[in-house]
């Protein structure tokens, strides 16, 4: 499976892709749809559609099971809805959208993907991000 990172900021999207590659390794495919076509802050339905299609495309190792989509702020969901409408039923069926926080969800899902996890397992790993401790209470 592969990841699709949606952010309002191109810098956040590209920076997170670098971070994911360093933590999870280079074998996890990560598509980014971040910022608008002209580089401003915002999200773009066509860029998201393109990113999901690229994430779902067959790779050197064969077919991809599906794509896990993560987003930074809820307003990106408006563009995402438009993007999902452009996909075929078959493409949509292989696309899962996560409620997880973007950075934590991407890293957790990518590490699971790097060990061959299924789309559902990666979705569950990303969901763990919501309850993950950051600041130890001891």
């Amino acid at each position, binding site marked *: 499976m592969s990841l699709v990172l949606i952010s309002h900021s191109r810098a956040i999207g590209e920076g997170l892709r670098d971070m994911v590659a*360093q*933590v*999870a*390794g280079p074998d996890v495919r990560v598509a980014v749809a971040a910022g608008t076509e002209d580089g401003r802050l915002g999200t773009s339905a066509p860029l998201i559609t393109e990113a999901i299609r690229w994430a779902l495309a067959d790779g050197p190792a064969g077919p991809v099971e599906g794509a896990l989509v993560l987003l930074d702020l809820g307003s990106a969901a408006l563009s995402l809805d438009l993007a999902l409408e452009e996909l075929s039923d078959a493409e949509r069926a292989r696309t899962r959208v996560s409620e997880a926080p973007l950075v*934590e969800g991407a*890293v*957790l899902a990518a*590490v*699971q993907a*790097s*060990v*061959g996890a299924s789309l559902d397992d990666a979705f569950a*790993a990303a969901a*763990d*991000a919501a*309850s*993950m*401790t*950051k*600041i*130890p209470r*001891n």
Partner: protein
Amino acid sequence: MPEIRLVVIDPTGLHARPAARFVQAASRFASRIVIRQAGREADAKSLSGLLGLTLRPATEITVAAEGPDAADALAALTRELSPYVSAAVVDAEAPA
């Protein structure tokens, strides 16, 4: 359940990249593998669990494995973590 005790020697603690390498290495084994620290326990195959332990320098951890490849798993994980931890007790049968 065979186990090893290790001490975090990286002066900055156990960070995301080594933690991810550890999860990747643990995932190659069929055994159930856990990391224990100060009464807390995390699944070694889960990055959220491992990062949630927030392992600081000089922290002692126990890695325990249960399953058909438990001994191999512990040996491999000790190797994987070797830049960041040192062995506190290697002999699984040693009295506590």
